[in-house]
């Protein structure tokens, strides 16, 4: 059984890696690779599930490789298989299989044919890891892969403005979800003093015992999980990203945003249910959030005049209802509802272009001059108000800017004085001073020492804030992200004593990725002259290879699970105590903004409308 589970995890990875090696132009080869990897996976799963059901369908927990171990900390990959996994895997495998077959013809002759299937397979890898994960750490690996593949698919038409803009937008919401997950991991580590597996969470006594004495911590963890879940499943107040994600080819929108990706939030709730189930207040909150989302997004769906945004909002409303079902403890109903909603929305999106001929014909034969919907029962003023609010999506999209990104930018504007020279002079000096102090820690007064971690983490945060809003120098922005990591490492080093190898583990990936990124930027500068961050440059048009390598550097630098930095980040958090909320907040905010700043650099330099106009370029408004 365990080999089979391994196979189910590894098969998509294999398919993805294989698909990377294929030549660009070989459509048949590419699509067959995708078709076979997903098809075989689907069959293997079906065989496995029959066997599993036959043998009493007990939950399987599979503790896999331990990637890092130190004292009471152990970072290990763990897989878990139960009914929830089975349903998610079934729906995911079936839909992905259908959509790969569908896309095989649909994408014929599309530039980026290979890239499309690569990304679909990468998504599939992430999806499988997520739903078969046995602990939060493993889930986070899959989660990160989902995030990045979403970004790549939304920005599939990378030479147009809106897809790239929306990809960055969606990615930024996903990062908020990431914050929730990171903090949940941090706190649960302190709660259970181990990287708890989902299998252990089902042990009622164990969870109950831990929660009894730490109910606040329990609530904090639940809230963070809810934050992650509602960001991923487009619940309030994050709903507006989902319709904006519909920028890729229709089949990719259909499985990602119509069905699979958007239900991953529900999955994480179902997966952690044994944990938060015991907290009535959390259950009420989840239920209420679902209800409010369902009501408001139903209203928004009703006024949508474009077919994809209508489906998107209708789907969000159903997911709101699923949240309620989950909160009520009706797990089976929720799973059933998830599957039905996923199939329905996929199909509706795939046939959405037909809506013109179908509805026009219907209008031609059944036209009634004044169709009245139930809203006529509102008074005029209430009616207009609700209609206008729904059209404006209850200002959800604007609010993200108003309350989140604009304050960040305003804060960063305070750092406008900073230039490369000042930076190297001033902060590098302080940093060196800090490192010196680290080795002579005993001489620092205790009163000062207590504040050093927070102070350094704050400086680190400033670095990344500056990086996030830098408009001119690309290298400076890149450098600042690296510096941010250095500051965090320094801050944590002051917080707790641990072996240097942990710091090295954390910074190793950063170093390699940082240098690679610099090299690529330098190479591009040599070829293209100047670069800035004030607008999109679209250099992937002429330099796809540099763009790819730089993307890898970006992933490495942002702690994507391809370098040890990924473990390092988790490790860093284990050295933040459970009462150090400020420190945890600064560090997690830093990591979130890092990801954003890095993707911003990638997007501004390599994506968007090409700066050169010797070829066809799209309007900015398209």
């Amino acid at each position, binding site marked *: 059984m365990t080999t089979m589970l391994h196979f189910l995890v590894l098969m998509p990875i294999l398919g993805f890696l294989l698909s990377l090696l294929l030549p660009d132009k070989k459509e048949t080869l590419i699509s067959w690779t995708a078709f076979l990897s997903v098809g075989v996976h689907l069959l293997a799963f079906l065989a496995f599930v029959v066997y599993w059901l036959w043998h009493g369908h007990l939950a399987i927990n599979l503790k896999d490789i331990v990637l890092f171990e130190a004292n009471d900390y152990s970072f290990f990959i763990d897989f878990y298989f139960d009914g929830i996994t089975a349903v998610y895997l079934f729906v995911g495998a079936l839909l992905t299989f259908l959509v790969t077959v*569908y896309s095989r013809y649909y994408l014929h002759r599309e530039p980026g044919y290979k890239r499309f299937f690569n990304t679909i397979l990468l998504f599939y890898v992430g999806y499988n890891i997520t739903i078969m994960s046995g602990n939060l750490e493993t889930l986070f690996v899959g989660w990160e892969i989902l995030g990045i593949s979403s970004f790549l698919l939304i920005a599939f038409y990378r030479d147009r403005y809106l897809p790239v803009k929306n990809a960055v937008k969606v990615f930024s919401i996903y990062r908020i979800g990431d914050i929730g997950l990171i903090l949940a991991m941090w706190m649960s580590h302190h709660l259970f003093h181990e990287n708890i597996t989902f299998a252990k969470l089902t042990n009622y006594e164990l969870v109950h015992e831990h929660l009894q004495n730490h109910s606040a911590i329990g609530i904090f963890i639940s809230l963070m999980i809810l934050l992650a879940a509602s960001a991923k499943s487009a619940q309030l107040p994050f709903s507006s990203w989902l319709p904006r994600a*519909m920028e890729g080819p229709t089949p990719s929108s259909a499985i990602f945003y119509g069905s699979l990706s958007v239900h991953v939030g529900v999955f994480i709730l179902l997966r952690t249910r044994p944990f938060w189930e015991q907290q009535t207040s959390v259950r009420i909150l989840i239920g209420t959030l679902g209800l409010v989302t369902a009501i408001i997004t*139903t209203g928004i769906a009703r006024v949508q005049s*474009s077919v994809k945004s209508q*489906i998107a909002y209708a789907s969000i409303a159903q997911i709101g209802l699923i949240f309620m079902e989950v909160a009520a403890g009706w797990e089976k109903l929720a799973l059933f509802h998830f599957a039905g909603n996923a*199939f329905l929305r996929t199909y509706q999106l795939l046939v959405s272009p037909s809506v013109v*001929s179908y509805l026009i014909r219907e209008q031609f034969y059944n036209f009634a001059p004044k169709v009245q919907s139930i809203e006529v029962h509102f008074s005029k003023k209430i009616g207009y108000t609700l209609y206008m609010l729904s059209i404006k999506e209850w200002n959800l999209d604007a609010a993200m800017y108003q309350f989140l990104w604009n304050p960040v930018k305003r804060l960063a504007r305070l750092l406008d004085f900073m230039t490369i020279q000042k930076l190297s002079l001033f902060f590098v000096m302080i940093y060196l001073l800090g490192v010196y102090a680290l080795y002579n820690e005993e001489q620092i007064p205790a009163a000062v020492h207590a504040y050093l971690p927070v102070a350094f983490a704050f400086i680190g945060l400033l670095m990344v804030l500056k990086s996030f809003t830098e408009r001119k120098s690309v290298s400076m922005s890149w450098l600042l992200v690296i510096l941010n990591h250095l500051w965090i490492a320094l801050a944590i080093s002051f917080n707790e004593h641990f072996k240097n190898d942990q710091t090295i583990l954390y910074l190793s990936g950063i170093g390699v990725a940082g240098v690679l990124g610099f090299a690529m930027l330098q190479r591009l500068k040599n070829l293209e002259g100047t670069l800035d961050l004030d607008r999109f440059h679209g250099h992937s048009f002429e330099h796809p290879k540099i763009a790819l390598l730089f993307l890898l550097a970006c992933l490495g630098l942002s702690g994507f699970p391809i370098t040890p930095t990924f473990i390092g980040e988790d490790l860093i958090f284990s050295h933040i105590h459970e009462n150090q909320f400020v420190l945890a907040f600064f560090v997690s905010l830093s990591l979130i903004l890092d990801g954003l700043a890095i993707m911003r650099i990638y997007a501004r330099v390599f994506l968007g409308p090409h700066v050169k106009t010797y070829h066809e370029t799209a309007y900015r408004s398209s």
Partner: protein
Amino acid sequence: MRAQTARFDEHSVLHELKHYLPAQAPLKDFIHHNTLHAFQSQQFDDGLRSASEIFGYKVSLSLAEFRGLYTAGRISAPVLERIITTQKGAKNQLAWRNKVVFEQYDTSNTPRIGTLRSHWKTQYKIDLDSLVHPILFRILCSYLDQGISIWRFPVGKTGFLAAIKEMESHSFVSYFRTKRAKNLLLNTDCNLTDLLELLVGDAALFEHYLFDQQFAHQGWSGMVSAIEDQPQTLLDRREVTLRDLIAFELLLEIDALDYQFDQNWLALSNVVKIPPAPLFADVPATELHQVMAIWQQAFEWSYYDQVLAGIQQETNFPARAAGKPSFQAMFCIDDRECSLRRYLEKNDVHCETFGTAGFFGVEFFYQPEGGKFYTKVCPAPVTPKFLIKESDGSNKDKLKKDLYFNKNAHSFYGGWLIAQTLGFWAAFRLFLNIFRPSMSPATASSFKHMDKFSKLTIENHNHEHENELQVGFQVEEMANRVEGLLKSIGLVSDFAPIVYVIGHGASSVNNPHYAAYDCGACSGRAGSVNSRVISYMANHPKVRQILVERGIVIPFETQFVGGLHDTTRDEVAFYDESALWPQNQQRHQANHLVFDKALDLNAKERSRRFESIDTSLSAAQIHEKVRVRSVSLFEPRPELNHATNALCIVGRRGLSKGVFLDRRSFLNSYNYQIDLDGKYLLNILKAVAPVCGGINLEYFFSRVDNQKLGAGTKLPHNVMGLFGVANGIDGDLRPGLPSQMVEVHDPVRLLVIVEHFDDVVLTTIQKSPETYEWFINEWVRLVAVHPQTKALSVFENGHFVAYTPTPQHLNTIKDIEPLLTSTQENFPVYLLS
């Protein structure tokens, strides 16, 4: 602020704007037209140059592409040489050849449009577009929406701006973020001049500003302008004007600026130090422009010369055996019928085929049974006075429902129920559609246009009228139309026992551009009703009586049969077969087999361009795959429509019967002998220039700049309000053709080849100024073929000039079939033996 010397003439600026904006109507009325119609009053080269420099359009293949075609031999060296010599003189030949073939040029394009309004970004660091566009598009789309939203725009019928005003004055919230813009809307008449003064300041800049603003979303503005001009194009009518749109957009801009700067901002003219170049000032021709023009012509004439040589060399093709034809069949002029006719003639050497505009000379509105509206089924510029109604048919197919388009799925509890029930069925449906595609209610099928067994009210009785339209035609009116049709195609004697009149339409699924696949001469509908109507008329005894008086004697035994060719599925439906006499019934059955075989072969010939079909299979097998393809959700290319069109031949069938033209030619039958003064020719050319020329140029421009003049790839398209498509949810509308329709198209202008004496052709085209414009400004090219000597003369600068194509060796083939698998590209011109 500069002195306000210039006066702003709102009316004329709006008029200008409307002239330059895309003119595409809503999707259901998609009719091909010259995308750059606004420049058609200039010479082709000049118009393109202006369009490119002013609006930033790419107007030809790129220099690299042209040079690639030259290296590949697709642009012929002798032709290039000849064109350089003619244009630049023999002594400059070498120098110019070097420039054309080798010189490096900077081909980047910095258009004039947008230069003024960009100052907001450079001077104020504000991105007005991203603050204004999403909400503007959303409100506009909701206002115009034809049936996607469930909760409709609450105020209608009063005009766009008035509707918003009404909502703003009775609501707790506002579309605006600040007070001033809202007050301007509520308390002033939103005069454009006042708003522009506030926003732009200097009146001299107003026009440029409005052009910049509207061309930042030309798709939406064009749609508004089109609906303003023809409100009937929306079934659920909406009152909207470009002026209203502009006023609202100006208000939103003021609002965005107020929001950002709290009224602490100055009008734009205060920060514009150097006024931008006037938008419509002359665009001087640079060397690069000349090089591109030379390449364009070389590309075109490389192909034209083959065709013209083919027409001259064609001698050995066996003419139809003398005597009575086995049957005659009339098709639409459409390039897609080109190959079907070839196969019919090949399979039955005694038959005879004709081509004419696919409405067959009968112009009317059509009301299908149960239809709440009238549909126009004749060329777009014509406004018919007649109405044909369908009755006694079965509406089963037309009205089939599909629960997945049911709006309850978007409601709260409806969605809850549907997700858990139909949701699972959806997975099954998807599975079926991917592995066994079949016809569904979502399919747009040409056969749904009219029920095969319904009745049509073709003859007018008792002067019956409905909504100012005459229901049916009177006998005299019928006779006129039949006479006109037969004389224009030269079919006035030697009638076969059965004369088929075959309209055409198309079937597709998941295709918002479905109307573009149907018959252009029927305003983007199928031609089935027209073919039935004209057949009825030609079979009418009283009509035949009148025709005899006019010199056309149709034998008693001859019967006309209407039909419809579905160009996607390659199927033909015949109408009123039961009315055939027994003898003709038998003949019809024999002919039916000829049709079936020809359709199989036609499907096979088409399949060579389809990646998913193996062209080496048998014709019947391929035909089945072609049918499946037409109903496959995942197939963005159900057929290739007019792609590769390049020619229009107006003349007797014999002129081109022996030349293999690879489905690239519109074919209009015409016999100069019965029209020595060019009376019918004028009618033909009046339709050919705008219809075929329009199709050709729309393909041309969508191909060369698929991003700005075409709709881009259709894969991410999102349907907006049932009238347009956009990318994503808050993008601009994308008029023009998607890349999947045009990718195989070679952007060459239409070459119209007329078989007549050149002096007659000249006087004919001069009779109609609109038609003449197409030729004199060279947006379509024109060659006259001497009917007796086959001598050629080309129309240039208002004259016909004798022309000899560069010497060509054309291969002669017996049959195209063995060659079908050899290439997916265009075939060269072959002679048929």
